[in-house]
């Protein structure tokens, strides 16, 4: 049953989002958490890290998570990134720019926002999915 791991994975993501709201009152949006962790970091690093420690702790946890998953035999180790270095950098720049301009990504809009029945998040999710479909179509089937 190939859909078992995606379903359990989704449950854990949902659980994480709910616990986050319950415990610290925050939306589980990764682009926002990353942005807040690095924004103005160098103006007053000590004060900043103290205030935003929760962001850093979340991101550290996010990195630890997959190491635990890979102990499970049915969870396949991720394949290496196929995209070239140039494409990876351009893609990173676009993802950073787009999520900042559009105030969110797959987690903040796609999961938490839709779960809050936010129209903004629903619209954003439909647009970035469509934009992703078109990009993959162009790259895989037209170029």
């Amino acid at each position, binding site marked *: 049953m190939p859909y078992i791991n995606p379903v359990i*994975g*989704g449950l*854990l*993501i*949902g*659980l994480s*989002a709910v616990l986050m*709201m319950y415990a*610290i*009152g925050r939306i589980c949006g*990764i*682009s926002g958490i*990353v942005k807040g962790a*690095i*924004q103005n970091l160098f103006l007053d690093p000590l004060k900043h890290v103290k205030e935003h420690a929760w962001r850093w*702790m*979340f991101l*550290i*946890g*996010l*990195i630890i*998570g*997959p190491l*635990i*998953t890979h102990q499970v035999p049915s969870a*396949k180790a991720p394949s*290496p*990134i196929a*995209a070239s270095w140039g494409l*990876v950098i351009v*893609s*990173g*720049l*676009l*993802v*950073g*720019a*787009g*999520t900042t*301009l*559009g*105030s969110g*990504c*797959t987690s903040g809009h*796609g999961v938490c926002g839709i*779960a*809050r029945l936010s*129209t*903004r998040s629903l*619209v*954003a*999710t439909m*647009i*970035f999915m469509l*934009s*992703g*479909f078109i990009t*993959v179509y162009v*790259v895989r*089937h037209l170029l």
Partner: protein
Amino acid sequence: MKNLFSLTCGILFGIGLSLSGMTNPQVVLGFLDLFGNWNPMLIFVMASAVPITFIGYRIVLSRKQQPLCDNEFYLPVKKSIDGKLILGAVIFGTGWGLSGLCPGPAVASLSSLQPKVFGFVLAMIMGMVIVDYLIKPIKKDH
């Protein structure tokens, strides 16, 4: 205490992303290849994450005055669908489709120690800083 909860949430989220296949760019690109050899598996991730979050948020936000470790719930207040939201989503989707990486899975994949993941995350941070710098003057006008 706040940090311990946050760390726990991060770990849960990281396990969820990697177990579901979201940290595997080939799986993500397969999902985005709607007009080709479509791999629908990632639909199940959203289909289980969204209802859990919907129900959980309802319970938490209706029964609690404030979160366990803070004084208020930090919920987005913006309601309008503006050009920034739409253009941002178009740009994000394009970047996502080029590599199969989005912010959560990219950070989670740092654990795989692939140099390209570090390159992606650094470029992503640069993209954030650049746009933040560019839209700041617009914010001051309001």
